[in-house]
């Protein structure tokens, strides 16, 4: 027989951001704990969360554990009985361990002989007596980003119960009947009359609203259906989806009523994901602020509304913000006049502050703020932000000029990098730190800096995301594509190289300076460089890192080799991460980012293009033949050093002039025939399809060579000739990828 299980953990308001992960945990956790308690639960538990409750319903949970019958094997018979047939200490010990008389033990025959054994029968316990342990374990299991002490404890031998927020009530029903359960109090709190929390059958509706009875009073429920209905009647929508849909609909209709649409784009979208977890019964009010504040930049208006007040901006049809805004409230009715008026008052106070900063900051041009950066420390070992501004000015010029080959943009890139950090000294960024970069860009625009400069400053913290469509998009960059890419790379590379030199590399989960994100930004730019900037340049890691090291002092304070070694490992790892996040196969990524001839030669853009071409080949028989043989090629080619190959190619080392065997001659001819196409593709960095097709065609020739030819011939000159041949092949293929990593595993 099965019965319904309903648990509601009534809490003081849980942080909105915690609810989505908590609700997933809750379902999994209850399922796992029921399972561990041997209570069958044929359909997965359904979890729910609102700011004031975590609830879970399991429609069918077994009323009783199954009975257990098991045979526990003891000592072998010969060790269990003395010659006289009396039990030995081993037998007595085994019986004692299981709490039975020794004469109740049985004998079992096994392939290894006869043993003493104990047959244990345990009758399954009633679910009602087991469920308390399940809830205790669930309360302990739930993980919160931050837990608190609230003078509570459980009787499970583990003492104090920490939780995300204090628990105020518990609904704990099995088959409609309350399961006894108590959360106790610490002695200090209990002595002062702080009450324990006892499980019951009463929930609470909305804190302040109820259709009948007094708001906030306990309401009795008997089943999940009744629970859900009762909550709704008392202004609590249990389902997050229902709350979200109601908000979306109300936002839209309220915006329409004032002739607009919900504005704020991405910011508003993520706000819409947050607000359903801030309210139990959402409604919307429309407010307006004096039109004079529309003179503030849209970014400031949006940040004030969305981030600081959780309000949605209203935009006109053309996308421009209007003086209207929408606030999601936790009350039954829309547009309560008092709430609208008060919300307007709060928003206007904030906008007035913002306008004060906007006016104060513009009294001096951005460039005049550079000196103040000297008082702002970047890192103890790396100096102030002024020092950083000077470094990245130089580095951005080098990136634009040398790595990008765009001399016309060198001055713009340098200027943008020089100004990039100046907004850290503005009042606006002091008040709205999330607008750093953005405000600098806006102030630079106000100062009359050209588009190539101000847009580069504006977006220089980007990209943050690793996907191909992460901002900024080419449309955001306008004419500033190249100067932006140079300044943004300079900023990030300077941070990475500098902090690695200062010994601040990320370790495990610790990445206090966000260096992983910086590296993701670097590769986000490099991998999409043509789309973002229109450039055809393909900068490699080595030249970029060298330029950043030079800006950090280069020669004299050159980084210790182990620092560069750690940095290159880190960079390769992050490049692979970005490429994997873009959906490329893990093994293809490894093959295409082989540090060959060294990590310095790795070119993120080429890696991406190789990866776009690779999936068309990896499945083909020819390619697989090559992949399988390439490992052998690499192993044998190791017998000849790079220097020796150089000697062979330069005619300094003797090679046999015996006539080659046909397979050897065929492979040599094949290499010469295919080399130009592969070399051309690699040089141009575009047509990797052709290059991989050429490479795959080596398969049969290599196979035949290994079958017919003995590489490690006794004649050293002959051996050298054959090794040189394989090494040439290895080098040719490695320019594309280490295909030995791509052998398909047998399924």
């Amino acid at each position, binding site marked *: 027989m099965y019965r319904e299980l309903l648990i509601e953990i009534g809490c003081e308001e849980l942080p909105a951001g915690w609810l989505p992960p908590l609700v997933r945990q809750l379902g999994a956790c209850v399922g796992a704990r029921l399972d561990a308690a041997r209570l069958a639960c044929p359909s997965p538990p359904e979890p729910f969360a609102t700011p004031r409750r975590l609830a879970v319903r399991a429609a069918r949970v077994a009323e009783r554990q199954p009975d257990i019958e098991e045979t526990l094997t003891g000592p072998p018979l010969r060790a269990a009985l003395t010659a006289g047939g009396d039990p030995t200490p081993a037998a007595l010990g085994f019986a004692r361990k299981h709490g039975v008389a020794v004469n109740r033990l049985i004998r079992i025959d096994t392939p290894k002989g006869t043993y003493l054994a104990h047959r244990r029968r345990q009758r399954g316990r009633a679910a009602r007596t087991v469920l308390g342990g399940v809830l205790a374990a669930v309360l302990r299991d739930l993980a919160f980003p931050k837990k608190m002490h609230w003078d509570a404890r459980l009787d499970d031998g583990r003492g104090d119960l920490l939780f995300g927020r204090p628990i105020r009530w518990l609904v704990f029903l099995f088959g409609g009947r309350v399961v006894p359960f108590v959360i106790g109090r610490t002695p200090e709190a209990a002595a002062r009359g702080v009450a324990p929390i006892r499980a019951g059958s009463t929930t609470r509706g909305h804190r302040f609203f109820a259709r009948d009875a007094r708001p906030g009073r306990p309401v009795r429920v008997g089943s999940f259906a009744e629970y859900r209905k009762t909550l709704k009647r008392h202004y609590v929508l249990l389902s997050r989806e229902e709350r979200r849909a109601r908000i979306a609909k109300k936002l839209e209709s309220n915006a329409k009523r004032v002739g607009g649409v919900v504005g704020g784009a991405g910011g508003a979208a993520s706000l819409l994901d947050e607000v359903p977890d801030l309210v139990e019964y959402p409604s919307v009010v429309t407010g307006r602020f004096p039109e004079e504040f529309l003179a503030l930049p849209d970014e400031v208006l949006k940040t004030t509304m969305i981030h600081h007040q959780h309000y949605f901006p209203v935009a006109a049809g053309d996308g421009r913000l209007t003086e209207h805004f929408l606030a999601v409230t936790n009350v039954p009715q829309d547009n309560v006049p008092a709430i609208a008026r008060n919300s307007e008052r*709060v928003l206007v106070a904030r906008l007035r502050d913002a306008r004060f900063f906007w006016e104060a900051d513009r009294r001096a041009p951005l460039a005049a703020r550079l000196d103040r950066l000297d008082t702002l420390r970047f890192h103890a070992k790396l100096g102030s932000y002024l020092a950083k501004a000077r470094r990245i000015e130089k580095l951005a010029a080098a990136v634009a000029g040398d790595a990008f080959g765009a001399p016309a943009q060198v001055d713009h890139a340098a200027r943008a990098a020089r100004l990039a950090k100046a907004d850290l000294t503005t009042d606006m960024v002091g008040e709205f730190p999330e607008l750093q970069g953005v405000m600098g860009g806006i102030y630079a625009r106000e100062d009359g800096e050209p588009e190539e400069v101000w847009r580069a400053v504006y977006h220089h913290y980007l990209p943050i995301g690793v996907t191909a469509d992460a901002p900024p998009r080419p449309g955001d960059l306008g004419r500033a594509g190249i100067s932006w890419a140079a300044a943004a790379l300079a900023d990030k590379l300077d941070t990475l190289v500098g902090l690695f030199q200062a010994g601040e590399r990320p370790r495990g989960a610790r990445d206090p300076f966000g260096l992983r994100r910086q590296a993701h930004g670097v590769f986000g730019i490099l991998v999409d460089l043509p789309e973002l900037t229109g450039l055809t340049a393909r900068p490699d890691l080595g030249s970029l890192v060298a330029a950043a090291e030079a800006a950090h002092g280069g020669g004299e304070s050159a980084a210790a080799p182990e620092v560069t070694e750690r940095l290159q490992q880190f960079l390769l790892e992050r490049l692979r991460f970005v490429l994997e996040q873009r959906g490329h196969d893990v093994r293809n990524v490894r093959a295409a980012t082989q540090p060959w001839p060294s990590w310095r030669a790795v070119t993120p853009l080429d890696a991406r293009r190789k990866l776009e071409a690779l999936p068309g080949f990896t499945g083909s028989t020819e390619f697989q033949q090559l992949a399988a043989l390439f490992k052998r090629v690499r192993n044998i080619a190791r017998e000849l050093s790079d220097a020796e190959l150089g000697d062979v190619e330069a005619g300094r080392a003797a090679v046999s002039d015996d006539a080659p065997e046909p397979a050897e001659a065929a492979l040599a001819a094949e290499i010469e025939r295919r080399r130009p196409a592969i070399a051309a593709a690699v040089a141009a960095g575009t047509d990797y399809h052709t290059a991989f097709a050429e490479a795959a065609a080596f398969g049969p020739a290599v196979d035949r060579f290994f079958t017919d030819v003995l590489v490690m011939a006794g004649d050293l000159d002959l051996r050298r000739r054959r090794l040189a041949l394989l090494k040439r092949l290895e080098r040719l293929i490695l320019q594309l990828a280490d295909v030995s990593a791509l052998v398909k595993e047998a399924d």
Partner: protein
Amino acid sequence: MTLQDLIASLSRFWASRGCLIHQPLDTEVGAGTMHPETFLRVLGPRPWRVAYVQPSRRPADGRFGENPNRLFKHHQFQVILKPSPDAAQDLYLDSLRVCGIDPSRHDVRFEEDNWESPTLGAWGIGWQVLLDGMEITQFTYFQQAGGIELSPVSVELTYGLERIAMHLQGVDDVYDLAWAPGVTYRTVRHQDEVEQTKYAFGLIDMPEAEFAAGHRDLFEQHHRLARTLVRSGLVLPALDACLKCSHTFNILDASGGIGVTERAAYILRVRELAVAVAGAHAGAGGAAAPGA
């Protein structure tokens, strides 16, 4: 409801809920938490309930009396309930009702806002209470003070009196508030705001460098005194001196006399003092065996 009526209503309410009505600390503080009635009383096991108004100085928020919402000095109504009662939120909401705020006519919300004071080595878990989108109270379950884990947990309520009064009186400019019938906040406080801001921003008859050097020196004197007082086992005078350090640092910070690096170092030094004071209090038995 005038500002003074608001204070009287809250005092009456909390007195009726078993709170002792205390008075402000007579030295400069940035928040009611720094008052020994909070900072020291939350340590140790002894139950305590107290409420008081605390004028709180935030030099960096000084606006020469020109900003309608920001003040060099504002007033907090501070409540400590130790241990935290199980109906702490309901009690708090009742206190709003006696001030004339009916939550069923507004949108009252508890939104996550964990409080932390690096200079006091104190932190807690809690919310900002929003009334129609305006923060009116910080509601905190104290977890640590002076670096010491707290058991039992105290609840700290910090009401922003000016904000609540502005809401109740429907005014948009703090200086238009009625402090008492016929007496505005402007009359009572404006001159103080103008003059204190000028001082805090270093706009006085003294070169910038001298102002900074003088205040650094003041800090050092208070710091030395605080250390001596801790060593001498005089907890309350030591706390006073520690708070003088904190306030002097705030003035230096507001006047722009401190770089980022130095800033962190100052905060750390004040924190070390606060931890030493709390440790001395707990060690001296002030927390463990009260009665003094």
